[in-house]
């Protein structure tokens, strides 16, 4: 049973991460390669909050999401000043700097040793979430909440402006919208959502280290998004399910772990290429990358 819960928890986490990436990438067409950095910052802040403060789940989550949101200002600033390749490169740079800080600033982050013994989050100050099935429920409800919020975001006037920025930024600004403000909010929300996934991850695994938040992880999150498809909730859930379940199928096929790990990556990579070539809208997306 625990195995099933594990799968559910991971699908929940990656659904949230894919939805978070969907805001800048799918709605505003800003190809952000720094999603794992937000995820990582969120996870480390959560560890810090859970270890040091005795506050319940929801306020804790809220604080972590907002604080991570402020880190996103660095990226949104880059998205305002830089276009095309230069923005992509700046986001890549941000991702690597965050990793480098997590890895090397040993006084604070314990560097490569990571932070262990993270206490479980508590619901309403008395229910400790320790069992996996509790976590599975938490994960599913957070993913559902995020999906719900994302759905309303896409449908809302705010989402409409983001979608129009995607097709023609100049026309939006001469229609009286402050495009910069919209990009800043988009990244803020994206970072906040990613951080809540980080919170779940830190609380569930109880141990975090920098290697979970590398550039590869950013690529992995984007793979989930592109395989599933851009612009809606459905694509993110499908994408997350595919990338979480696929390696488990390989394990059932009886492949040794070390081969399965590489093989899994090969399949994602191939999927990414094939999606770009033949299914630009992914398995269930609304729009394609521009």
């Amino acid at each position, binding site marked *: 049973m625990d195995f099933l819960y594990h799968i559910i928890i991971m699908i929940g986490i990656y659904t949230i991460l894919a939805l978070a990436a969907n805001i800048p990438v799918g709605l505003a067409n800003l190809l952000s390669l720094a999603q794992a950095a937000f995820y990582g910052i969120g996870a480390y802040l959560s560890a810090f909050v859970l270890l040091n403060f005795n506050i319940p789940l929801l306020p804790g989550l809220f604080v972590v999401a907002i604080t991570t949101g402020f880190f996103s200002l660095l990226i949104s600033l880059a998205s305002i000043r830089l276009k095309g390749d230069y923005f992509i490169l700046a986001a890549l740079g941000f991702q690597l700097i965050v990793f480098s800080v997590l890895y090397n600033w040993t006084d604070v982050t314990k560097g490569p040793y990571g932070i262990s013994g993270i206490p479980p989050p508590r619901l309403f100050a008395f229910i400790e979430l320790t069992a996996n099935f509790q976590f599975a429920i938490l994960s599913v409800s957070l993913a559902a909440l995020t999906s719900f919020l994302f759905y309303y975001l896409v449908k*809302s*006037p705010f989402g409409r*402006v983001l*979608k129009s920025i*995607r097709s023609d930024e*100049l026309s939006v600004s*001469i*229609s*009286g*919208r402050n495009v910069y403000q919209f990009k800043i909010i988009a990244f803020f929300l994206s970072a906040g959502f990613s951080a809540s996934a980080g919170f779940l991850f830190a609380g569930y695994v109880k141990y975090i280290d920098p290697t979970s938040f590398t550039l590869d992880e950013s690529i992995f999150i984007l793979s989930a998004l592109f395989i599933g498809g851009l612009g809606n909730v459905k694509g993110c859930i499908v994408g997350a399910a595919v990338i979480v379940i696929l390696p488990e199928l390989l394990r059932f096929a009886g492949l040794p772990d070390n081969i399965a790990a590489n093989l899994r990556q090969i399949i994602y990579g191939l999927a990414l290429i094939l999606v770009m070539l033949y299914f630009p809208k992914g398995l269930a997306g609304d729009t394609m990358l521009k």
Partner: protein
Amino acid sequence: METILNISNLNLSFISDRQKEESLFLFRDLSLEIEREKITALVGGNGAGKTTLFNVISGLQRGASGKVNFQGSEITRLSPYKIARLGIGRLFQGARVFEELSILDNMVIGAIHHANEIPFYNLLFYRKSMAFEKGLEEKAEAILSELFGSNNIFWEDRIKPAGNLSFGHQRLLAMARLLMGNYSLYLLDEPTAGVHVQFIEQIASAIRHMNSHSHKTVLLIEHNMHFVRQMAEYCLYMENGKIIAKGHPNDVLASDQVQQSYMGI
């Protein structure tokens, strides 16, 4: 007559990439006035600086010195969105509709409102948000039926993506979208360029609607001389970043100087 837009001593130059010292002047002491509630045409050859002038007015081109006054307030160094909110609407060259958005959403985006564009506003204040949206939709319907008749294709296909429309229809939609903004000055960059002849009359009537029906000022760049004569009450001829002739379109276009400059004779 009262002026709505007043440009004085506009200078714009950039250092050429290649010869580092030499700077190229796009505008040198350009001054002009646009009269309120009139249709003014801005004509001139390629590279005369017409579109750049529009960019300066709407805040997209930075680095100009001089003053741009709009309805008594200076807008020279404001951001594009602030200039739009003050009441200057702009039609770009080309189609420029939001292709993935529905026709209705394209219209609604054209209205300058930002109260409900805060994330999750529709979640927190559902009723208020819906009422607001409804108001905008009604306005869109009113504009579309006034311009194109009560059962026009735009309203019928309002939930379809605007990208499916033909170029001429996209152009008309962009004009209608502009009317959503209640601007007092409309800058139209080549409204008829690349449009099939059948749409030109509709574009003309949309411009007339802007002007006579809602008493708004229109400044348009146009290469189609028939259209200029037909529409404009006043004409500015621009060459190398300067206004070299102004007056009634027939007089301006008949002047030898303009014909020589335009045709390179």
